């Protein structure tokens, strides 16, 4: 197993999904627990990988490379480094917690868990594939289960949201596919192998075109302003665990794409597009914050806050400094755990009250003290309170950006104030104030829900106090990437 560890990580959810097909659909208990065991197994495998992974080494590790379609030099080529490894850990963790969180799903469980596991394989594959052909396949594999998961188990406007999500991201990735093909034909020798492609130095005009093609694919996924409008719809309609996956992992595939492909493949273009990237990032941060502030729907508020927070990742990318890259990569992780928790918390409230209108609540802090405590903790993490993980990543991004361009950092700081405003206004509306008669019977958060949130809470505090625990894994790769792009530490 050790020699094919990454393949096991990628495909074990798929194997479990296939196994689920042989379980009768009436055996819901069995279905749930097999799925949960499958995601837990991936978690254990990624812990094994953690042991095998050497954080100080900057190249790809745990590499597996087999020829797959020799006629087109397509390889089954997977490997991990400091950029993808935290994403694997994040995916394994969030998928497991999301699976436990899915136990509330009461219809068509068999299909649900099958698609859920298929989705996990797609995401893990996307983060580990080092052959662009293979990457594209995994990237598209993610779309299909997501489409059905939103479209079948979603809310009132689920069809609209699902189709919008599917078509929007598909449109983006088609440009990326063209880009991949163009890369293949322009590379000598023709190859899809990332490590070989990086050695080519493409002409700058070509780089710019290809950067744009990839940009469309990735920016829609992030989502960067102005490609973000699928996100609120998808989030509001998706069932809670799917929102968690969407915000916690799926969005990171976009920024991961920049780190893994766009930047190393098109370094000159990346540098040339830097001001544009920064502009998009800063607009996203401020715009997302303002729009989040105007929301009355709790879930939509969190969705727009994602637009704002993912803007920090893009800003770190645009900074082109070691701190900026470090911060962006860390922000991908911290935003993953914090926003997942916030979506889970929205779900907890929605399951009880069947509304997400923040104005309808009030004074829940007396009614549901444990829930309130947890919600406040993650709100604080999201608004970047020092001592919690969100602060470290935003601090690094802003420091890195400040070193590159003071104005960008200054503007992005508006987003920090806005984050405090919309999150604490949410706390004010939902938790504080006089208690409503209507909600007098709402039970506090129960054990299973706490179980899904506790690991996230522990990580938020742990990485907030000891950020080097995770940064040790990220920093060497981030610095190596910066150096390879011609940047200075």
């Amino acid at each position: 197993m050790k020699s094919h560890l990454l393949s096991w990580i990628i495909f074990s959810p798929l194997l479990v999904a296939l196994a689920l097909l042989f379980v009768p659909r009436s055996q819901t208990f069995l279905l749930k627990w097999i799925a949960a065991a499958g995601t837990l197994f991936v978690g254990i495998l990624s812990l094994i990988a953690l042991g095998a992974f050497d954080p100080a080494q900057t190249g790809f590790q745990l590499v597996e490379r087999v020829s797959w379609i020799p006629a087109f030099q397509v390889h089954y080529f997977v490997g991990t480094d400091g950029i993808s490894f935290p994403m694997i850990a994040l995916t394994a963790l969030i998928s497991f917690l999301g699976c436990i969180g899915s136990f509330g799903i009461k219809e068509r469980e068999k299909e649900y868990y099958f698609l859920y596991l298929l989705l996990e394989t797609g995401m893990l594959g996307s983060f580990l594939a080092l052959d662009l052909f293979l990457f594209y396949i995994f990237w598209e594999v993610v779309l299909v289960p997501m489409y059905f998961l939103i479209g079948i188990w979603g809310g009132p406007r689920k069809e609209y949201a699902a189709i919008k999500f599917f078509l929007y991201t598909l449109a983006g990735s088609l440009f990326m596919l063209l880009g991949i093909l163009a890369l293949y034909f322009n590379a000598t020798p023709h190859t899809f192998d990332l490590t070989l492609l990086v050695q080519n130095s493409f002409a700058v005009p070509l780089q710019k075109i290809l950067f744009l093609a990839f940009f469309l694919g990735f920016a829609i996924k992030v989502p960067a302003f102005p490609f973000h409008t699928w996100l609120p719809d998808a989030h509001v309609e998706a069932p809670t665990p799917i929102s968690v996956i969407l915000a916690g992992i799926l969005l990171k595939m976009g920024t991961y794409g920049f780190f893994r492909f766009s930047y190393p493949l098109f370094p000159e273009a990346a540098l040339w597009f830097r001001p544009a990237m920064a502009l998009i990032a800063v607009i996203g941060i401020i715009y997302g914050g303002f729009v989040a502030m105007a929301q009355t729907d709790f879930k939509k508020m969190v969705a727009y806050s994602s637009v704002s927070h993912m803007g920090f990742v893009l800003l770190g990318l645009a900074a082109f400094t070691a701190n900026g890259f470090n911060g962006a990569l860390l922000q991908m992780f911290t935003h993953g755990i914090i926003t997942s928790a916030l979506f889970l918390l929205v779900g907890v409230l929605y399951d009880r009250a069947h509304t997400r209108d923040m104005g309808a609540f009030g004074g829940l802090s007396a009614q549901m003290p444990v829930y309130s405590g947890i919600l406040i903790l993650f709100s604080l993490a999201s608004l970047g309170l020092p001592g919690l993980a969100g602060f470290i990543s935003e601090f690094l991004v802003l420091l890195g950006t400040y070193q590159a361009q003071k104005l960008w950092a200054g503007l992005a700081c508006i987003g920090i104030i806005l984050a405090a405003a919309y999150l604490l206004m949410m706390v004010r509306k939902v938790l504080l104030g006089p208690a409503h008669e209507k909600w007098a019977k709402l039970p506090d958060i129960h054990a299973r829900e706490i179980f899904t949130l506790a690991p996230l809470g522990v990580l938020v505090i742990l990485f907030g106090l000891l950020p080097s625990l995770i940064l040790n894994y990220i920093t060497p790769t981030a610095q190596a990437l910066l150096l390879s792009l011609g940047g200075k530490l």
Partner: protein
Amino acid sequence: MTSYAYLIPVFPLLGFIINIFFGKFLKRGAAWVSILSSLASCALGLPAAYEVAKTGQIFSAHAEWLTLGRSTLSFGYLLDPLAATLLFVVTIIGTLIQIYSAGYMQDDPRFSRFFAYVSLFMSAMLTLVIADNYALFFMSWEVMGLCSYLLIGFWFEKNSAANAGLKAFLTTRVGDVGFFLGILTLFTATGNLNFTELESSVHAAGATPALALAALLIFCGTIGKSAQFPLHVWLPDAMEGPTPVSALIHAATMVAAGVYLVARSFALFSAFPSVMQVVVLIGTLTAFMAAFIALSATDIKKVLAYSTISQLGYMVTALGLGSLSAGTFHLMTHAYFKALLFLGAGSVIHGTHSQDIREMGGLLKKMPHTAWTFIIASLAIAGVPPLSGFWSKDEILLAAFDSGNKIVFFLLLVIAFMTAFYMFRLVFLTFFGTLRNHKIHPHESPATMTGPLWILALGAILVGLPGSPFFGHWFSNFIHGPVTQGTHEIHGSGAVHHALNWFVVGCSVAAGLGGILLAAVFYLGKLNPSVWVMRTFKPLYDLSIHKLWFDEIYSVLLVRPFLKLGQWLFIFDQKAVDGLVNAAGTGTVKSSNLQGWIDKHIVDGLVNLVGVVTQLTSATVRRVQTGLVQHYLLITFVSVILLMYFHVKP
């Protein structure tokens, strides 16, 4: 002792953890957990502070925390005279206030949560005090802000309390973002965030604009946290919190952290005279404005809140004038007498269940302990010798006098006069005369509350002495000792101190006693000129009672436009951005429909046309193929005739 200094904030942190998780089971014990953890901090912190005072040495240690590009960020503690002074203030006052709280909060259903928050605050504040660099300082600074938020909104069922917490957090956050950017600026300019190396880095970098910017931005943090103009609006509202919280966080310690920040950054600030001028300007303006508002306030806690803002402005002014010792000295004395004033006010509220001083009166007999300690504190803040406030205030006035800035000196005197007046207006209205609202049945508070009052009263009397000439201005020499070794002399604030300036002392005492006297004339005697003053100076009175309309102005100019902007952008998002996406979608559908029509009617039509033509042709031609030999022979015959005809034709 000093090598265990890093444990000082750990005990309250443990107290927090115990109380937040197990407080429900501990019930009354929660108070003990917090008080004991605080006492443990005292047991470690006070000897450490004494060690610093005795030896005049600096103790510090640090460990690496985070790698930032080429440089690393280390966290550690720094025990120098400044930190020792703050330790002396925070540990003692913090512990006393927690003992007092055990009585004050007795019947609160969320008793344990209160102590959990207070312990977390103590932990953060103590971390801030002994932090050796800006990053750790900022982190604990923000956690303090969180505790302030949680404790202001402690009675969150009240809308006013919930709003006040939100307002406090957001207002200070504006300042904090400035502070944060200041740290980034400083780090980018010097590559170092350590307090001990601040002076040498500033020297090495020279007086660059970047460093001046850093100083100004860092000062934004002070403006937010220490409630200076124009971000002072949150502090009066913060009085919604339980009174011990007002005493601890919003008077004695946290709000003074902004002053402490300037003191910590003194090497940076003093390198830029222009920045120092800004500091003086903001400080004086704040001190004057808040004192002016306090003149007309009728809520006992609001008077004290504006008084706190005013006194913080005083400290900021002192630092801006270049007198590190005067600013820190006043911070220390103020912490004692202002904590005492707030706890006294809390005792009054506890005993009368009212906060409106217009309803009170004659409480001196009903609540003697509260009244006498309150009067002692009021004398101290009014600057009556030889109480603590006199010595520190005198030092600030002296600094202003020595700086040669006559306007600032005069303004500070006026503020001192106003302070004495509004404080004794409060004292006379509350404790003298007769009770005005007879629904109130005042009673003295229990010993857990009056005990701390007397201890603090002792402090309010005595803590000024180390800075007095009787002790040879020991405090001033102590603060200046290791910190400013080899620094430039600024406005005669050097370690060597001069004799008493009798002119300044005279002015100071006159202002204090004059204010008290005027208050006595207004509120003690039979003739009550206050109504007459109110009418005669109506515009000024309106200005004061409406707090210069700051809240209203901010609401119109900032809060509402921001919320509106959010809503507009949301509409824009739905109509324009998403509208485009949907338009692209429907456009695609429409164009596919069109293509479908074209496909059906034109492309397919052509195909069909070919078919139809073929069909028609074949249908016509088919008629010829009858299968009858005679017909074929006839056709052959006719054809041959026709061929012959055409060929034969010439």
